[in-house]
């Protein structure tokens, strides 16, 4: 009886270790879906243009994603009805997406062209596609 308890404890300890964090691919796929959701609720007219990284190099992915995350803060919802969805999606996209690879990127966020929110989000989707690929 006693030995069974001890073995059970060891088993559950190891099982906790084994249920590790979800694989990265799942996380990125969910982010890609969230970006698509945001495209439906974001305001596209009379808004500030945002720096949009286009086709960043492999070493510049972290800088590009950080640039997108900063730009998302400046987005606004289309109307008051979609406010809840908008806030929820922005909150998800504010979390850390890529780890800091430490690689030096030649182009900073400000060096990229400024574009409208829909194009901004389309480019963000493209960068996520590159990450998932």
């Amino acid at each position: 009886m006693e030995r069974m308890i001890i073995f059970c404890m060891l088993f559950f300890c190891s099982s906790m270790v084994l249920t590790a964090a979800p694989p990265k691919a799942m996380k990125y796929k969910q982010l890609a879906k969230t970006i698509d959701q945001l495209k439906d609720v974001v305001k596209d007219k009379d808004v500030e243009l945002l720096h949009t990284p286009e086709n960043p190099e492999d070493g510049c992915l972290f800088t590009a994603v950080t640039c997108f995350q900063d730009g998302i803060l400046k987005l606004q919802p289309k109307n008051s009805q979609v406010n809840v969805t908008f806030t929820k999606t922005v909150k998800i996209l504010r979390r850390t997406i890529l780890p800091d690879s430490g690689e030096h990127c030649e182009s900073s966020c400000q060096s990229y062209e400024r574009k409208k929110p829909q194009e901004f989000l389309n480019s963000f989707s493209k960068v996520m596609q590159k990450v998932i690929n």
Partner: protein
Amino acid sequence: MQGGLHTKHRTMAVPGASLVPILLLGLGIRLAAAHSPAGVECILFNEEYMTCTWGSGQTLTANYSLYYWYENRSPVAECKQYLWERGVRTGCRFEQSEIIQFQPFHVRVNASQDGRILEIPSNRMELQNLVKPEAPVNLTIRNMSSNQLQLTWSSPYPKAHCLEHVVKYKSNKDTSWMKQEVKGDIFSFPSVDYEKFYTFYVRSKINNYCGSTQLWSEWSVPVFWGSNTTSKGRSSPEPPGSPRHPHTVLTVSPWLFAGMAEEQLQWFWIHTVLIPIASCLLLLVLVVLLVRMERVWVIIMPRIPNPNKNFDDLFITHNGDFQEWVGVPKDVVESFKPNYSESICHVSELPYEPLQDSIHPPGVPGPQEHGPYKNSYVGA
């Protein structure tokens, strides 16, 4: 009059003169229209090679050459391997080493005919949106329990997480094909009628997570299931005594297997939250149980005996006298003390006297009853 005629001629010549360039222009346009391709179309086949074509050999007659470059990346280069049709270049083939995805790709085709050079406008393409995977292979059907079929396949495309599939199926009694979108590699067919003969096809496409493309692969080689009632000799598994099921395939609602992959994501999150919390709680309960059950605790953490306290008596009370502490009775102690006196007894050796009989060699002492040794003792 002559002047009038002249002017007449002149007035007639002017429209005639302006007509010729118009005619030439028209001819040029017609020529151009007849011989210039609509545009360059590029397709990446299974990410192994790419072909960019600008027409077929029937409509083209000029000498074409293709130049390509990647934006901000490589210099302009000419195609290394052209595709020929009827002696005319109709396309270009790029090998895997020349293909870079997620970098804008530009193409320019120069056509030279009869000394004139025509340039087809350059296209800006994103190659990740032009991938056409190969058709799925190894389609296998497994018979699961309770009239359920499971169709599985594998794809020659290297990244399986980038694909989405469509299964097309029909029985021999249906008139039209049923199509079902599938995200994984498995398609479950809920209720199969054993009297019917089914045909299944599968094709794939790159999903939205890896590219924005509408290029489907070719349909796979078909796989069949069931018995063809017209030809009775066909070998097929027929379960004994299975009741006739009504044709329920078409009425099954698609939400059963359409939302499977979508649900998988949510289900996974529940797993990663629920299982750690549940196992933590269980661990806590087990630890509490263990602590409460003294008998179990003693087995894991036995008391190591410390003999320190046992010797307090010896050193403190009895001052190191072992005999006193042990408790030896006094008369036993007294009995070991001697109550008599002994005088010292000297023992000495007498000199050795050899016998008359000299049979015994010297050095060997013979047996003698009266030995020269004398010892005396004084009894107590």
